């Protein structure tokens, strides 16, 4: 008979580390999908996922079971991703001179006729990833959660551990930061 999540967690807390395996198996796809939003290399994604599970195991005693285990785990995942971003702030100062040909073409198309530049194009996805990499860790996290994943301010506050007013302030600053990067890109390309 398959054991419930609560039973598995209780067994782990009693010292049965093997009972943690079904939880890892069940929720790893979500952890990996989230980690891939913030890290590109497979090794980095795997490091984040491993870190999340080790933290989850160590802090399992603090899980009170009031909210689903998945919510608790996702909070840990987002916070681990944020720590990763803070520790790996590379490429933030690089210029836009090395845009690939499809990215340049997409931008040209957008400048000529914004409607003709499709958001489904791979070049647009490459471009947004490039811009996200140039954002500060806080701004990247807020833009990802608020704009890309369409989460509410309250949800973000719960996920990140920040207060609601702080999320709003950081969201305002993140949008401004993104606009500044886009302006820099436009200036480098067209001036």
């Amino acid at each position: 008979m398959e054991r419930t999540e609560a039973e598995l967690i209780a067994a782990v807390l009693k010292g049965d580390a093997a009972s943690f395996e079904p939880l890892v198996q069940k929720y790893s796809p979500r952890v990996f999908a989230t980690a891939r939003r913030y890290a590109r290399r497979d090794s980095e994604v795997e490091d984040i996922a491993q870190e999340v599970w080790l933290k989850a195991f160590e802090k399992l005693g603090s899980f009170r079971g009031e909210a689903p285990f998945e919510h608790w785990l996702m909070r840990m995942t987002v916070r681990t991703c944020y720590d990763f971003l803070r520790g790996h702030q590379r490429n933030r100062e690089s210029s836009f001179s090395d845009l690939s040909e499809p990215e340049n073409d997409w931008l040209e198309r957008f400048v000529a006729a914004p409607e003709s530049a499709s958001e489904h194009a791979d070049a647009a996805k490459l471009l947004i990833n490039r811009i996200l990499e140039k954002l500060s860790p806080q701004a990247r996290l807020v833009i990802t959660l608020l704009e890309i994943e369409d989460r509410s301010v309250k949800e973000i506050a719960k996920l990140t551990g920040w207060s609601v007013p702080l999320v709003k302030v950081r969201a305002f600053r993140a949008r401004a930061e993104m606009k500044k990067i886009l302006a820099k890109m436009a200036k480098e390309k067209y001036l």
Partner: protein
Amino acid sequence: MNLEQLQQKLIAAAKTEVLDDRVPYAFEKRITALLSSRVAAQKLDVWVHGLWRAAISCVAITIVCGAFAAFTPATNSNSTDLSQDFENTLLASVDQADQAQ
């Protein structure tokens, strides 16, 4: 260039990206093995901490005893012959019995 519109387009592009939720082969096995080894190491840690504490206590007691022995003034003994002192001590009760008679 309309930056506001560009920002919206790029955000929309990011939203269309399908999330990759692939998990490396046997990832859960690796995590479980890592956790099991950590749990074993933690048990060993408890012993190591206990032994270190005991060792520190022993060293502290040795230092206190050493200091006590070094700084306590030696009792004045006129005799320099240890064997004579030993004999006197050992036969003290016999001597006392002789004196009583």
